[in-house]
């Protein structure tokens, strides 16, 4: 045997051991409980089998295992990321002690599949990496360990990866690093207390436009390790991704779903009318898309994708963290791209497709997540660690002024800057228990909602026979499930003369701001195929009345800029309403989703200004109205 091999394999074992010791005693307190003695007295719970809890998490987080994080300063490993999400204190990549005020309930560490683990491998002198020419070269470049050498290494990797060929294709590198990633999830998954889902990001970005998807596994390491993540080196075509997912389910016994994000940076490709290779989309495409991509990440640090002010000119809340300056590629945004980039417009166009093809290709649920590249899932305005390590909290102007989109342009008007980043978002799921299976299943059936980082809870049931008095039922949830459908569901078989009715309840974040209003957003397609939308204010705080323009007046504002504070003197902690669609036409396809708005609270830049004694960036609002979007309920005449 090769003596070097011996030492190396011993060393690899050592690597595993030290990872285990990281999880050590601190994690032990969350070990599952033991069975109580047989004579224990249990309480007489009514038999319930419907989802009765909301779990808040993040399905999109990068760590030092992602080349575009770890090669530019991120030191947090997947293990660190899980520990942080579980509420433990960690030291951020820039040396700042970091802790969440409230832990998350679940987390997907979704590192980029393209050379997943490369930065960690460079740092540790991974033998699989150093067995390749590319690996030796990048290790050599980064040898000085300085920031400059890291950036040089990053550029070296980017150049190699932009050829579209995996620079490490000939090695076993991918396999060994994937096993480390799944191991971290396995170690941090504590059913009932914290769910660590296995996942990765397929980073398709033809010409710099964003077609990225996060792939989420239902099961554990035992099956996940039987496959290797597909990467954009394999294909940039979402349909090929679905082929791969189908094959992986057959070959390895995994269950997978894919969550796309940032249509706003896709230059019209996210919800396009044609397939990746240019054919008009057809019913087979629609079916497959909805089989594999049941939910969409609608809000995150790189902007909000619910709708765009140009698409929804009558919606005064539409201009929310609008990022519409092109993509990461060289091509600028043109107005014709917008309808194919935003969720609400996709829902409307999906109805038209449903009428034409018999299948709706854009019938997805909505969640939020962070897409943070710091290993720290932070979506709170007063505890926001930024999009990348260089933008972690600091008084340095880089925190606000770094351009993130349009870097290559000479005009500032083509750019989106760091201060425009949203401290968002969260994925909220309705489930019965905090386990991989229950959370994955909720995503699959779209019983989920998005928030911009706040922990608003919202529930909606749609049905044909609900009445005003049902809103007051003490068995609200059971009745709702028995006589209607929850968010993500379908309304069909409209009885004669009936209109759909919606029972809606919302409650503010227990540690957060009161609610301003609840809205129902309806979209529909008429007989000649044109689509429409309408925003209804259905419940609100105080005794406000709609003005002549039909708009409810603003809720007011308690934000104190200098102190970066607000009070709950306005708004309501609870809002609930029974709402029927009085303009319902049973011949027309429609969707309905609920938007809940908080009262204004200080934006993260306002907290920063106070903490660091710096000026607000020019153009930055003092406050923000955080919100939640539910997955829609769809109506179809057939």
């Amino acid at each position, binding site marked *: 045997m*090769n*003596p070097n091999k011996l030492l190396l394999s011993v060393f690899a074992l050592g690597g595993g*051991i030290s990872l285990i010791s990281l999880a050590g*005693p*601190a994690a032990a307190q969350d*070990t599952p*409980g033991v069975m109580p003695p047989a004579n224990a007295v249990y309480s007489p719970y009514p038999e319930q089998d419907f989802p009765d809890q909301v779990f808040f998490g993040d399905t999109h987080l990068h760590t030092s295992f992602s080349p575009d994080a770890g090669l530019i300063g991120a030191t947090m490993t997947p293990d660190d990321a899980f520990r942080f999400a579980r509420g433990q204190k960690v030291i951020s990549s820039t040396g700042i002690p970091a802790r969440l005020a409230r832990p998350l309930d679940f987390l997907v560490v979704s590192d980029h599949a393209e050379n997943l683990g490369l930065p960690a491998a460079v740092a540790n002198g991974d033998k699989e990496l150093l067995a390749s020419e590319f690996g030796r070269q990048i290790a050599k470049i980064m*040898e000085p360990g300085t920031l400059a050498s890291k950036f040089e290494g990053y550029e070296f990797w980017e150049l190699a990866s932009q050829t579209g060929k995996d620079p490490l294709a000939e090695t076993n590198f991918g396999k060994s690093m994937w096993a480390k990633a799944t191991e971290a999830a396995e170690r941090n998954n504590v059913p009932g207390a914290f769910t660590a889902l296995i996942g990765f990001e397929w980073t398709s970005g033809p010409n710099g436009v964003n077609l990225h998807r996060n792939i989420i596994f239902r099961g554990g390491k035992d099956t996940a390790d039987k496959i290797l993540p597909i990467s954009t080196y394999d294909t940039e075509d979402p349909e090929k991704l679905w082929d791969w997912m189908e094959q992986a389910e057959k070959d390895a016994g995994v269950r997978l779903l894919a969550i796309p994000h940032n249509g706003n940076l896709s230059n019209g490709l996210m919800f396009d009318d044609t397939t990746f290779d240019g054919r008009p989309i057809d019913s087979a495409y629609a079916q497959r898309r909805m089989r594999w991509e049941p939910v969409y990440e609608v809000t995150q640090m790189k902007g909000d994708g619910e709708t765009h002010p140009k698409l929804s000119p009558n919606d005064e809340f539409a201009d929310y963290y609008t990022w519409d300056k092109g993509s990461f590629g060289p091509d600028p945004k043109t107005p014709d791209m917008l309808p194919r980039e935003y969720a609400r417009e996709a829902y409307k166009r999906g109805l038209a497709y449903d009428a034409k093809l018999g299948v709706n290709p854009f019938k997805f649920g909505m969640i939020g997540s962070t897409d943070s590249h710091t290993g720290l899932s932070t979506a709170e305005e007063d505890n926001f660690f930024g999009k990348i390590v260089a933008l972690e909290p600091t008084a340095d102007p880089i925190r606000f002024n770094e351009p993130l989109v349009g870097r290559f342009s000479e005009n500032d008007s083509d750019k989106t800057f760091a201060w425009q980043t949203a401290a968002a978002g969260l994925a909220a799921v309705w489930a019965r228990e905090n386990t991989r299976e229950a959370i994955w299943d909720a995503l699959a059936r779209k019983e989920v909602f998005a928030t911009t980082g706040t922990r608003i809870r919202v529930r909606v049931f749609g049905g044909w026979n609900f009445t005003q008095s049902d809103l007051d039922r*003490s068995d609200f949830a059971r009745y709702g499930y028995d006589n209607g459908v929850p968010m993500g569901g379908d309304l069909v078989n409209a009885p004669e003369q009936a209109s759909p009715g919606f029972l809606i309840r919302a409650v503010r974040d227990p*540690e957060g701001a009161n609610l301003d209003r609840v809205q129902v957003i309806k979209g529909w397609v008429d007989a000649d195929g044109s689509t429409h939308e309408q925003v209804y204010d259905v419940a609100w705080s105080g005794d406000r009345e709609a003005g002549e323009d039909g708009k409810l007046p603003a809720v007011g504002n308690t934000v104190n800029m200098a102190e970066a504070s607000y009070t709950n003197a306005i708004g309501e902690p609870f809002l609930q309403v029974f709402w029927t669609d009085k303009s319902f036409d049973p011949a027309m396809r429609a969707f309905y989703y609920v938007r809940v708005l908080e009262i204004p609270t200080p934006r993260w830049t306002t907290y920063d200004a106070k903490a660091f004694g710096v000026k607000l960036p020019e153009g930055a609002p003092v406050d923000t109205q955080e919100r939640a979007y539910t997955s829609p309920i769809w109506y179809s005449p057939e």
Partner: protein
Amino acid sequence: MTGLSRLLREPLLHFFIAGAGIFAVYMAVARPGPSPADVISIGPERLKQLYAAYETVWRRPPTAAEMAGLAEDFVREEIYYREAIALGLDRDDTVIRQRLRQKMEFLSAAGAELQLPTDAELQSWFAANRDVYRREPELALQQLFLGEDASADDVGRRLAALRAAPDTDFAAMGMRTLLPAELELSRPQTVDGIFGQGFFGELQALPPGVWSGPVRSSYGLHLVRLTDSRPGRTPMLEEIRESVARDWSADRDASARKSIFAKLRSRYTVFIDGAAAPHLARE
């Protein structure tokens, strides 16, 4: 514990034993005979290994010519390696230094990893680290919400009604909200995540099984009945022996590493001239 067994458990000794063992294997495998600095001999073991490595990557055995090339390449590597060491090229190479450091750190820990704790050891280690294994208390509850505030009269009236008819549809007596009317056994994090920080703590003071309150949440006042509870407790060692043993090993690893390094460091005299460059230090 006898002196001998104490000695046998000494981490530094393990370090040297493990190191010596690996060195012995290394000698046996790599140096079949005396091999002066200017002799490079490639034996059958090495050739087999080159052959296997090639086959793994290319999914076919190497041809004779390729095999000769592999051997020649190894010779080249070996010569460059020896010359580089002789020139001291390894000394300022961060990657090499890090690798060697990692190998040393691993070797320092290997002794503890291979060792199983005795019962007594595990017991005493567990006793010293009990708090880490403590399980949080859990409560199951029913609640009804009275609103942001309620008069003492109102609270008293409702409490009396609830206590008089414990089987009543209690949820119908409170304000309707999205707050759950009942929770199964839940940890503090879950309860506080719904009702606000500190609510679980308030509940712990309530008597079990009877409607009581009011208890203040971040929303307002609630009447609460605790329907089940599981006290926080430290499990018996037997219930979690495996994970304690794992942590014991990890802890031994860490302390072995620490004490070996301390002994190694004690052989050196270290000067760090911080005063000469104060601007290099971060506050």
